[in-house]
């Protein structure tokens, strides 16, 4: 499903975030991406989601060469990916419900069907009772769950999560990991970046370790 070959990402100024990374991730895999801060975890996720382009090398996602996607094709590519951000990137000027509705709205779903799917997604992350409140009133864990609901509402086959449990206490972190596992069990491919070793030992799954922009196996 995802194939990186000889991928290097160099930022302006010369900093090399990733050096010659080769990695294949199959359909339905649950992959933990580990490494110290600045090891290149976020960069790798950004490259897979076509938020950034590789300096050299190829990234194939769903048999599309991500680095060569035209600007106009990007939106349609991203609709197949659920993105979960460490800083949530929620919109605070609208309700919880409307935050989750946004991806559907963008894809042209409206009306009852869309509302049903939004409620189903909110139900999965146990936020159904809070659909009318503003995200700012939610706790950190709830905001992260809201971000997850938004990522899965359009039922993507691939979910990328960048440090989803970084700012959460253990009980919340476990909640969220349980959710991820449930998604994985219904066939969703997941890549989760984390530096929480205990989480990985508890949940198992494939681990990809990055150090100074290089893959360590």
């Amino acid at each position, binding site marked *: 499903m995802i194939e990186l070959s000889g991928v290097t990402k160099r930022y302006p100024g010369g900093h090399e975030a990733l050096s010659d990374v080769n990695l294949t991730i199959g359909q339905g895999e649950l992959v933990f991406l580990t490494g110290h801060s600045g090891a290149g975890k976020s960069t790798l996720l950004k490259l897979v989601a076509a*938020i950034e382009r590789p300096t050299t090398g190829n990234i194939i996602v769903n048999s599309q060469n991500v680095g060569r996607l035209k600007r106009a094709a990007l*939106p*349609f590519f991203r609709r197949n990916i659920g993105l979960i951000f460490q800083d949530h*990137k929620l919109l605070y000027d609208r309700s919880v419900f409307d935050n989750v509705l*946004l*991806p559907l709205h963008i894809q*042209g779903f*409206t009306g009852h069907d869309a509302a049903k799917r939004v409620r189903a997604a909110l139900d999965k992350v146990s936020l159904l009772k809070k659909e009318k409140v503003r995200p700012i009133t939610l706790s950190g864990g709830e905001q992260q769950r809201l971000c997850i609901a938004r990522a899965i509402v359009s039922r993507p086959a691939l979910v990328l999560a960048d440090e989803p449990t970084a700012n959460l206490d253990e009980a919340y972190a476990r909640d969220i990991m349980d959710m991820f596992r449930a998604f994985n069990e219904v066939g969703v491919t997941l890549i989760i970046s984390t530096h929480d070793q205990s989480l990985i030992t508890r949940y198992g799954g494939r681990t990809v370790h990055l150090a100074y922009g290089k893959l360590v196996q």
Partner: protein
Amino acid sequence: MKAWLVHHLHSLRIALRRFQSAPLASLFTVLVIGVAVALPAGLYMLLDNLDRAAGGITPQAEITVFLKREADADRGQALARELQARADVASARFVSKQEGIDKLVAAGLSDITAGLPDNPLPHAVVVTPRDTSPAALQALGEHLAQSEGAERVLMDTEWIKRLSALMDLGRDLVFMLSVLLGLALAAITANTIRLQIYAQRDEIEVARLIGATDRFVRRPFLYFGGIQGLAGGLTGGALVALGSRLLERSVEQVATAYGAEFVLSGIDLPTLLALLALSTALGWLGAYFSVGQALRQVEQG
């Protein structure tokens, strides 16, 4: 089709909500656009009125054809009838020698006329042309000079030429002012949209990240720009209407002082509609450029 409509309605709702969230700022922007619209529109209206006023005066432009001394009154009357039949002549009137002298006496020049042994004036035909454009007058003048018995054609067209040149200048001025203030309108809109984009940066970024097309992001801003332009156009139209109401009385007084009757007319409906369409389009255009630029910036991080 339904989804498309829902999208547009949604964008429209977002745009209206943005007006609501900053009513005072929106009001001022609309006012500024209104003034920018009112200036050329008002000038256009004045020019239009002036054109009409000038049109009311020019039929009085007269061409006098002096006949040869040997031509008698019958010849003059015949010429007057002949000219009267022409399409480009509104009226042709025969003025006899005697009438000419009487006029001079009436004008208070009897001292001079009394000293004359004989009436030195020729018979004349006074022609009022129908078409007062310089070219038409020129053509008519040339024809008159060649008519039988005509000695000399006296035509005071200089002032018509001057007026016509002034009107042309006015029209050029309106055009220039329209272009400049149209640019200003687009720039004002682009600027307000830029500020909005700045406030909406998060939303644009998130929307892009979860698969929004440029069009989706752009649409509410375009609606906003268009509505703002439309509101500005309406304000401009209202300002011009108000201005013409205020001027109405003084114009009437001036007209009365000149012994004329003249009613100032406001902007007519087609012109107003064109004005609104133009200001809407310019607002839309300003928004389009502004959002386009912002989208490229977001993409570059």
